[in-house]
C-alpha cells in the first residue's frame, strides 16, 4: 500500500489562505491503513486547524469529509457537494488522490495535507517499511522475493557492496542489508546458484526515468 505521513500543522497553516472555508478531505484506502489520512486523522487535523485558527485569529471555517477512494471518479462524485461549498480543499489523500481531486475541480485550489512517502507494508504496529520502487520491470523472482532496487540503498543488482556492518546497511544502519537478506533467502529456498548469474544493466526507462507512465487495457475500455 501507499504509505504517507501528515505534514506538520505549521506547514498546513503556511499553505492555507486566511479567512477561508476549508474542506479537510480524507481517503478511506491506503492512507487510512497507514494512519495518515483516514476519517480519524481528518477529525484530528480539522480539530488542530480549528484550534490554531482560534488561537491566531486565522478565520478558518473547517469542514470534514472522508470518501472511500480519492483516486477514483466514482467516489470523488460523493464529495462534489461538499467541495462546491468551500474555498479550498485540503486533501489527506496520497499524491495521486490530491491530483485526481484537483483535475476534477478546475477552479478549486486543492492542497496536499500529507507527504506521500513510499510503497510499503506494515511491519509491526506503528512501523511501516518501504518495499517497492515501482521500477516497472520486476526482478523479484531473481532475488528470492527481496527487492535490491528498493531495499539496497545503492540499488545494486550484483551485490553486495561489501560495506555492511554485521547485517546492517552501510547507508542506513537502522535497516538490514538487503543483500544479506537476499543471500539467506536464496539459501533457504535452495536457489543460491542464482547469485552466480551476472545481472545485465537494468532497463530504467520502464520506471519514472522514462517519463510519466500510462497503462491502457484495450480489453477493458468502453
Amino acid at each position, binding site marked *: 500500500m501507499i504509505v504517507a505521513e501528515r505534514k*506538520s*500543522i505549521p506547514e498546513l497553516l503556511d499553505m492555507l489562505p486566511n479567512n477561508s472555508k476549508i474542506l479537510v478531505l480524507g481517503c478511506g484506502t491506503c492512507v487510512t491503513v497507514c494512519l495518515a489520512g483516514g476519517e480519524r486523522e481528518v477529525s*484530528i487535523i480539522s*480539530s*488542530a486547524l480549528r*484550534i*490554531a485558527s*482560534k*488561537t491566531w485569529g486565522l478565520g478558518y471555517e473547517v469542514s470534514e469529509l472522508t470518501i472511500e477512494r480519492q483516486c477514483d471518479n466514482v467516489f470523488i462524485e460523493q464529495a462534489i457537494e461538499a467541495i462546491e461549498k468551500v474555498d479550498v480543499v485540503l486533501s489527506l489523500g496520497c499524491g495521486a488522490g490530491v491530483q485526481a481531486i484537483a483535475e476534477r475541480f478546475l477552479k478549486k485550489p486543492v492542497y496536499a495535507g500529507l507527504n506521500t512517502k513510499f510503497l510499503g507494508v506494515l511491519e509491526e504496529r506503528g512501523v511501516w517499511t518501504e518495499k517497492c520502487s515501482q521500477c516497472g520491470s520486476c526482478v523479484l523472482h531473481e532475488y528470492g522475493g527481496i527487492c535490491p532496487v528498493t531495499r539496497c540503498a545503492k540499488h545494486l543488482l550484483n551485490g553486495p557492496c561489501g560495506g555492511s556492518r554485521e547485517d546492517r546497511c552501510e547507508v542506513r544502519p537502522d535497516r538490514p542489508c538487503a543483500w544479506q537478506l537476499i543471500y539467506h533467502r536464496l539459501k533457504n529456498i535452495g536457489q543460491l546458484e542464482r547469485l552466480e548469474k551476472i545481472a545485465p544493466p537494468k532497463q530504467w526507462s520502464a520506471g519514472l526515468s522514462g517519463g510519466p507512465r500510462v497503462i491502457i487495457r484495450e480489453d477493458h475500455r468502453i
Partner: protein
Amino acid sequence: MSLNNNETTIVAFCCIYCAYAAADLAGSMRLQYPSNVRIIRTPCTGRLEVEYFLRAFENGADGVLVAGCEEGSCHFKEGNLIAKRRVNYARKLLAESGLEAERLKMVNVSAAGARLFTEHVREMAENVQRLGPSPLNRAKTRVQQEIKP
C-alpha cells in the same frame, strides 16, 4: 491559590478503576481541591482518543488532565500506556497549533491515592492559572467584552 478559581476550567478524564475512585475517596475524606475541575468518568484511559483531548480544548477547556492507573496495574493491562502515548502525541499537536503543551498532562493514581489525586489536581490548576485562560477562550472573552454595551 484559591480553591474557587472560576477563571479557568480543567477537564479531568479519570479512569473508573483508579483515579475516579481516588476522587471519590478524596470526597469521603473531605480533602479539598480546586473547584474548577470537571471530572469525566472513563472506562479506561486507553479508551481516550487524541480527538477527545483536542475537542475538550475546542469546547472551552483551559487544561486537560488524564488520570489513569499506575503503570503496571491497568485493569486492561496496558490501557494507561496507550493513553500515555496518545497524550504525548496530542501534546505535540497542541504545541504545533499554538497551545502550550503543558495544558495537557497525564498522571497515574491508584484507587487509594486520594491525597495524591488532590495534589495532581492542585498542581494542574496552578499551572493552568499561571498560563492563563486558553487562547481559544481569551478570543471568546474578548468578543463578549466587545459586544457588551
